[in-house]
């Protein structure tokens, strides 16, 4: 967990509606988590929802955020982290302003996702798992996005792109600053 601190980038770590440093959950975060708790038989069953709520608000889950969730749900931090690190889309390191998920499963492999990845590497100067130095993009591999009849596919934030050709990347990327 110490590596997260080393990776911390002040410009994106700052939670929008929490206290500076993000050591406590904000009123809004607590309200959303309380609603999730009301739907399950015991507090800690809401932990995945709590992680999603905090990540939605703060873009990633820092050690401090994780501790705050643990305290709020009467769990220990290691227990929360074991859940957080299990799931692909809970980010325990800072991510860029836009998260790009490139499908690397079999239909996209057949239809050319490897070429797409090469092209993205060249354009962004990063490999899977990394964030551009200007914090614009984090590039991650993702398993099957479920649009195999329109392979290869990628997602940027909530937007799905299908039948993507390397030459189209420039036009797609310019929508995300």
């Amino acid at each position: 967990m110490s590596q997260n601190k080393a990776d911390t980038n002040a410009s994106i770590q700052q939670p929008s509606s929490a206290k500076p440093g993000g050591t406590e959950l904000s009123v809004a975060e607590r309200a959303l988590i309380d609603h999730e708790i009301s739907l399950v038989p015991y507090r800690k069953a809401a932990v995945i929802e709590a992680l999603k709520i905090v990540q939605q608000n703060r873009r990633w889950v820092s050690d401090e955020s994780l501790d705050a969730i643990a305290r709020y749900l009467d769990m220990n931090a290691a227990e929360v982290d074991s859940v957080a690190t299990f799931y692909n889309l809970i980010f325990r390191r800072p991510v860029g302003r836009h998260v790009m998920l490139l499908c690397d499963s079999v239909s996209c492999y057949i239809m050319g996702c490897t070429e797409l990845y090469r092209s993205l590497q060249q354009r962004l100067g990063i490999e899977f798992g990394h964030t551009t130095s200007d914090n614009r993009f984090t590039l991650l591999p993702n398993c099957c996005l479920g649009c195999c009849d329109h392979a290869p596919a990628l997602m940027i934030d909530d937007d799905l792109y299908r039948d993507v050709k390397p030459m189209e990347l420039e036009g797609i990327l310019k929508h995300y600053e």
Partner: protein
Amino acid sequence: MNSQAGMETPLTQYIKGNGASLGLKEYEAIGGYTALKKVLQSMTPAELQQLVMDSKLKGRGGAGFSTGTKWSLVPMGPEAPKRKYLIANADEMEPGTFKDRLLLEGNPHQLIEGMILAAYAIQADISYIFLRWAYRSAAVLLKKCLEEAYAAGYLGQHIAGSDYKLELYLHTGVGRYICGEETALLNALEGKRATPRAKPPFPQISGLFGKPTIVNNVETLSCIPHIVNNGATWFRNLSSSEDSGTKIYGVSGKVRNPGAWELPMGTTIRELLEEHAGGMLPGYQLKGILPGGASTDFLTGDHLDIKMDFAAVAAAGSRLGTGTMIVMDDKTCPVGMVHNLQHFFAQESCGWCTPCREGIPWVEKILWSIEQGAGRKEDLELLDMHTKFLGPGNTFCALAPGAMEPLQSALKYFRPEFEKHIEQKKCPYANHTH
């Protein structure tokens, strides 16, 4: 959405196909929620269970287990636990599979009605849709449709004026293939790591939060309103084989017209490939087929007349799985493709049991070294050994045995290709080297 003239396509006939979704009013105008009203007014849970049993509906998520039988294992009657759960498995993540997305985005109310009916049949009082994170537009649509269904009195207290009550929640996952395994899905819903559970106890007895639970696939649940409206005999007669109903088949890969089509269960591979998918793209030959997703055995051009139903595909040495086939062409390296599959399974192994956690990454590394020209002759024996050690009975759940299916069949049908890589110390295919 394509369908053949004269053939019934109950699940998809009203899906507009341009990305538009049916709202409540449109769904009601085509007979939506009449099955729910009919059941609540005139059928007992036992009668509905019997109807689905008689329809011979089998689960469309991949395993093909009888839906009626699955439901019949839930404790019923005054002695049964008051709290029971019905869950729609919408965690579609099997590589090559894109059929549930079509139903979720095209006709969400059909799923919701199917879920209320299934919940009534087992007398569940809480229901969840477990939706994968990546299906963003489906999440927005389902949220809107759930609000509509509550406002119309199809959910909540006194559904359609009856004494039956049900709450239905949308849960979006945070990514992991294993969440599609029904007991792993239950752990994910409980806020835990999504490792599979030991069975027994089966979820029907002790599922979500220890209560009786049914988990059904989206396509399976979407069939239920139509079975209620048209009867078990009608549903059985939709099919051209032993297995009843229609099936949403899909084809992806280097074909002219990749897509998904609702067709009679038992449509042949040839019809799917040649008529619906339009044959191979110019310049490409068919080399192999994964008939039902990443975790099914390869079939070849010799199997084109096999019917795509549970029994016939099994008799040919593979599995129907999700019914969405992936076509391997002659310019795609079989070693590279199987490596891609094993990379996926290694990454998605939950890590709970040792053979899967350690074995699949080893398989992936061996395949990578062969693909890179560093393979040794004895590597093929090592791979053969793994297909047995990671096969059924040696691992905690079906993930690793599923991973071994495309590997064992690739070693059977495309062994000369593996040998060529080793002899030439390179991949003979120009494309797809990482």
